[in-house]
C-alpha cells in the first residue's frame, strides 16, 4: 500500500521535472520511479491510509494560513525589536514539550517554529522535548513556553497528521 | 584494425575488473595483472619498426583542417617510451607476484599498478594536451596511493609530501595548457604547434613554457624541484619504487617535457640553456647527495635525480647526437635503476633490512641478487661492456662536439662519483664478510629472481641497440622525432 502511494508521489515529481508527455519520458519515468520505490519506499511512508482522508487536506490548508499569519506577526515583532533603540531582546534557549505523537507532525512543528522569525528549534529528542532558541525569552518555565510557542500550531497539526 | 587504443584499454579493463572478481581467488589478481602486462609488453614490441601512426578517436575527421576529436599519435619517441614502460612494467609485475605477498590486499595493488600503467601509456600515446594531462593525473594519483601502500606512518608522510608536490606540478601544467589553449584555440599538440609557428613565439607561449618547465620539472624531479623524490621513492614497496624511478618520472616528466618543448612550443636557446643548467645541477648535486646515504633505497633514489640530470642535460644540448645519447640513457636508466630497486626489494624481502651498514657478504647467501645487482651497479656507473657506458659515452661525446667542454667534464666527474657510490653499495652490501645475523638468509623466491635476471640481461644486451641495423629502427627514429621539432605538426596533420 505505502509503496504504491510512494510510487505515485515519485511519478508526480518526475512529471513535474520533465514537464513533457512524450512516451519516452513516461516509460523511463515509470522505470525510474519503480527503482526509487524499491530502494526508498520502505523508509519513506509508514501510514499511507492517512493520505486518503480528505479532511486532513482541509486542515493542511488552514494550517498554512495560520503559519503565514503567525510569521507575519512575528516579523513585525522582530523588526520592532531590532529597530527599537534599546533593543529589547532577551535571547536564550527554552525547553518546550509537544504532545504530538508522530515524527512527521513533530518535524512539521519544529520546522514551523524555525520558520517563524524570532524562534528557532535547536534540537528535539525522541520524547517530544523541543529546545528552542528564542529572541525574547518571556518565560523560563517550560510549561509557559510551550503555551506561547508550541500550542498555536499544535492544535491544527494534530488534526492534519494524527 | 589499429591497435593503438589497446595500450590504454587493456590495463584499464583489467583494473576495472579486479575489484569485481579479485576476491574470488588468491591467484586471480596475479593472473589478471600479469596477463595484462604481458599483453602490453607484446603489443609494444609489435610497434617497433612500424611507421608513424595517427589514430583519430571516435572517428572524428578534422573539419577545415582543424582536428575536433582527440588524436593518438605513435611516433618513434612514443614507441621507445611504450617499450620502456611496458617491458619494465611486465618485469615488475612478475616480481610483484612474490614480493607483494608481504602486504595485504593484492587485488587493489594490481588495480592501482595497472591504472598507473594505463596512465603512463595514455600520456605517451596521446596527441592532445588535455588528454595528456588527464592520463598524467591517472598515473600520478595511482602513484600517490602506491607510495602509501604499506600504510605505515612514514610511508603516509612521504606520500603526502609527494602528493602535495605532485598536485602543485599538475596545477602548473594545467595552467600552462590553459594558456596555450587560449593562445592557439586548440588542444591538439600538432595543431597548436602549427599555430604557434604561424603566430611566432609570443609572450604567452613563453609563459606557458615556463609553467610547463616547472610542472614537468617537478614531475621529473629535476633540481631544484627534486625535494619530494628521496622520500617518496624509497617509501614505496620495491616494485613500485622500481616503476617510479625507472619509468614514471620519465613518462610523465621527461617525455612530456620533450614533447611539449620540442614538438609544440619549439626549443629556443634560453630554454636549452635552462635545461642544460638544471640537468648539470641535478647530475652533480644528486650524486653528491647520494654518496653519503646509508639507506640503500634512498641512495638509489638520489641517483635517479643524478641520472635524470644526464638525460635532461643531453636533451638540452639538443644536437642529434646528444638527443640520441639522452634518449639512450633514458632507456638504460629505466633498466638498471628498476633492477637496482628490485635488488633492494629482494634484500628487504629476505633480510628485512636496507641499511648498508648492517649488511655485508650477502653474495654468499643471495647469489642471484648479488650478481644482478653487480651488473646493475656496473651499468649505472658506466663500466664499458654494460649499457650505461655507451649512453654516457655518447652524451659526453656530444657535449664535446657541441663545444660544451665544461658539461662534458661535469658528466665525467658525475660518472666517477657514481662509480664510487656503487662501489660502496657493493662493498658494504654484497661483498665482504657475512655477518652472523644473516647466516640463515635465503635467496629471494623464483619469480623475483626471474624478473631480476630478465632486467640484468637487458642491461647487458642493451648496448646492442647501438649496432647499425638496430639503431635505425628504434633509437634513431626516437631521436628524429625529438630533433625534428615542429615538423611534428606536419607529420601528424598531414601536409
Amino acid at each position, binding site marked *: 500500500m505505502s509503496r504504491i502511494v510512494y510510487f505515485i508521489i515519485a511519478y508526480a515529481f518526475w512529471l513535474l521535472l520533465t514537464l513533457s508527455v512524450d512516451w519516452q519520458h513516461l516509460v523511463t519515468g515509470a522505470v525510474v520511479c519503480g527503482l526509487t520505490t524499491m530502494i526508498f519506499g520502505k523508509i519513506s511512508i509508514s501510514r499511507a491510509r492517512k493520505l486518503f482522508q480528505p479532511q486532513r487536506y482541509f486542515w493542511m490548508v488552514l494550517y498554512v494560513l495560520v503559519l503565514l499569519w503567525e510569521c507575519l506577526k512575528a516579523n513585525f515583532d522582530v523588526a520592532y525589536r531590532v529597530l527599537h533603540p534599546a533593543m529589547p531582546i532577551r535571547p536564550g534557549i527554552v525547553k518546550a514539550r509537544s504532545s504530538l505523537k508522530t515524527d512527521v507532525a513533530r518535524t512539521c512543528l519544529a520546522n514551523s517554529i524555525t520558520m517563524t522569525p524570532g524562534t528557532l528549534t535547536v534540537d528535539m529528542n525522541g520524547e517530544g522535548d523541543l529546545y528552542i532558541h528564542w529572541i525574547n525569552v518571556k518565560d523560563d518555565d517550560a510549561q509557559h513556553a510551550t503555551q506561547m510557542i508550541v500550542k498555536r500550531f499544535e492544535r491544527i497539526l494534530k488534526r492534519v497528521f494524527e | 584494425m589499429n591497435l593503438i587504443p589497446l595500450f590504454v584499454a587493456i590495463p*584499464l579493463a583489467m583494473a576495472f575488473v579486479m575489484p569485481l572478481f579479485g576476491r574470488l581467488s588468491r591467484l586471480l589478481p596475479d593472473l589478471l595483472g600479469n596477463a595484462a602486462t604481458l599483453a602490453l609488453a607484446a603489443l609494444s614490441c609489435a610497434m617497433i619498426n612500424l611507421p608513424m601512426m595517427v589514430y583519430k578517436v571516435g572517428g572524428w575527421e578534422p573539419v577545415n583542417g582543424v582536428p575536433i576529436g582527440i588524436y593518438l599519435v605513435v611516433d618513434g619517441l612514443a614507441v621507445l617510451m611504450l617499450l620502456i614502460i611496458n617491458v619494465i612494467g611486465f618485469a615488475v609485475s612478475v616480481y610483484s607476484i612474490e614480493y607483494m605477498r608481504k602486504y595485504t590486499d593484492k587485488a587493489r595493488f594490481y588495480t592501482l599498478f595497472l591504472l598507473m600503467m594505463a596512465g603512463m601509456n595514455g600520456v605517451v600515446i596521446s596527441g592532445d594536451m588535455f588528454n595528456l594531462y588527464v592520463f598524467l593525473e591517472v598515473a600520478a594519483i595511482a602513484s600517490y596511493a602506491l607510495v602509501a601502500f604499506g600504510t605505515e606512518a612514514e610511508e603516509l608522510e612521504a606520500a603526502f609530501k609527494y602528493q602535495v608536490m605532485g598536485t602543485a606540478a599538475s596545477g602548473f601544467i594545467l595552467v600552462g595548457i590553459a594558456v596555450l589553449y*587560449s593562445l592557439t584555440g*586548440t588542444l591538439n599538440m600538432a595543431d597548436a604547434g602549427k599555430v604557434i609557428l604561424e603566430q611566432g613565439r609570443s609572450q604567452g607561449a613563453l609563459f606557458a613554457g615556463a609553467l610547463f618547465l616547472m610542472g614537468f620539472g617537478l614531475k621529473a624531479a629535476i633540481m631544484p624541484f627534486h625535494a619530494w623524490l628521496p622520500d617518496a621513492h624509497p617509501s614505496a614497496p620495491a616494485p613500485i619504487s622500481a616503476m617510479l624511478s625507472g619509468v614514471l618520472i620519465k613518462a610523465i616528466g621527461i617525455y612530456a617535457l620533450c614533447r611539449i618543448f620540442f614538438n609544440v612550443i619549439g626549443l629556443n636557446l634560453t630554454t636549452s640553456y635552462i635545461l642544460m643548467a638544471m640537468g648539470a645541477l641535478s647530475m652533480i648535486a644528486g650524486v653528491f647527495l647520494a654518496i653519503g646515504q646509508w639507506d640503500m633505497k634512498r641512495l638509489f633514489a638520489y641517483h635517479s635525480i643524478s641520472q635524470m640530470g644526464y638525460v635532461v642535460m643531453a636533451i638540452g644540448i639538443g644536437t642529434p647526437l646528444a638527443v640520441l645519447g639522452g634518449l639512450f640513457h633514458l632507456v638504460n636508466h629505466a633498466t638498471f635503476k628498476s633492477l637496482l630497486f628490485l635488488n633492494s626489494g629482494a634484500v628487504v624481502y629476505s633480510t628485512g633490512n636496507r641499511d648498508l651498514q648492517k649488511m655485508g657478504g650477502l653474495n654468499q647467501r643471495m647469489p642471484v641478487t648479488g650478481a644482478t645487482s653487480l651488473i646493475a651497479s656496473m651499468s649505472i656507473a658506466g663500466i664499458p661492456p654494460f649499457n650505461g657506458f655507451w649512453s654516457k659515452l655518447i652524451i659526453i661525446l656530444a657535449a664535446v662536439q657541441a663545444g660544451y667542454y665544461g658539461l662534458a667534464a661535469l658528466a665525467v666527474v658525475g660518472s666517477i662519483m657514481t662509480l664510487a657510490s656503487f662501489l660502496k653499495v657493493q662493498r658494504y652490501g654484497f661483498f665482504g664478510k657475512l655477518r652472523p645475523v644473516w647466516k640463515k638468509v635465503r635467496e629471494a623466491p623464483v619469480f623475483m629472481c626471474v624478473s631480476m635476471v630478465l632486467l640484468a640481461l637487458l642491461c647487458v644486451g642493451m648496448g646492442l641497440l647501438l649496432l647499425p641495423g638496430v639503431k635505425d629502427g628504434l633509437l634513431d627514429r626516437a631521436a628524429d622525432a625529438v630533433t625534428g621539432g615542429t615538423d611534428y605538426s606536419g607529420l601528424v596533420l598531414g601536409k
Partner: protein
Amino acid sequence: MIIVLCPLIVLMILGGVVALEATSLLSSVVLLGIVGFGLSAAFLILQAPDLAIVQIVVETLSLIIFIAVILKTTSKDTSTRGRGRTPHYVMAAAFALIFVLAASWALASIPPFGMPSLRMAEAYLSPNSLLQPTGAANLVAAVILDFRGYDTLGEATVLFTAVMGVLAVLRKTGRKP
C-alpha cells in the same frame, strides 16, 4: 562580468588563506566552503551551468562528509604553527608577486575571453544543421561524451583511481604479520 568576478575571486582567495590559518578545523571547512561555492558561482557567471551544478553538489557532499568527520573526531588543528613561518610567507608572497607580474606580462598576448580563437566551436556546431553531428541537444554533453569521450574515460578513471587509492591507503593493516 568582470566586475562580479573579481570580488568573487578575491573573496575565494581570502577564504582559502583564512582557512589555512584558522585554528578550528570546523571553521576551516566552512571557509573552504566559501571557496567551493564561490567557484560554482564563478562557473555560473562564466555561463557554464554544467560545471556549476557539479561543483555545487560535490561541494555540498564534501562539506557534509568533512563536517561529519570533524564532529566525530576533533576540531583542533594540531599541526605545528608559529615556528619559523615568516620566511615561508615572504617566499610565498615573492613567488606570487613574480607569478602575477609574469602572467600579466604574458597574458597580454592572449585574445580576450570568448573571442573566436576557439576554432573548434565552428566544427562542433556544424553550420548546415541546427544541431551538431552527435544529435545531442546539450553541446557540453556532446563534447565531453562524444567528441572527447576518451578524455572523459580518463576523467572517470581519475575518480576510480582516487577511490581505489583511498580504499588502499585506509586499510586496517598494511602488511601481513
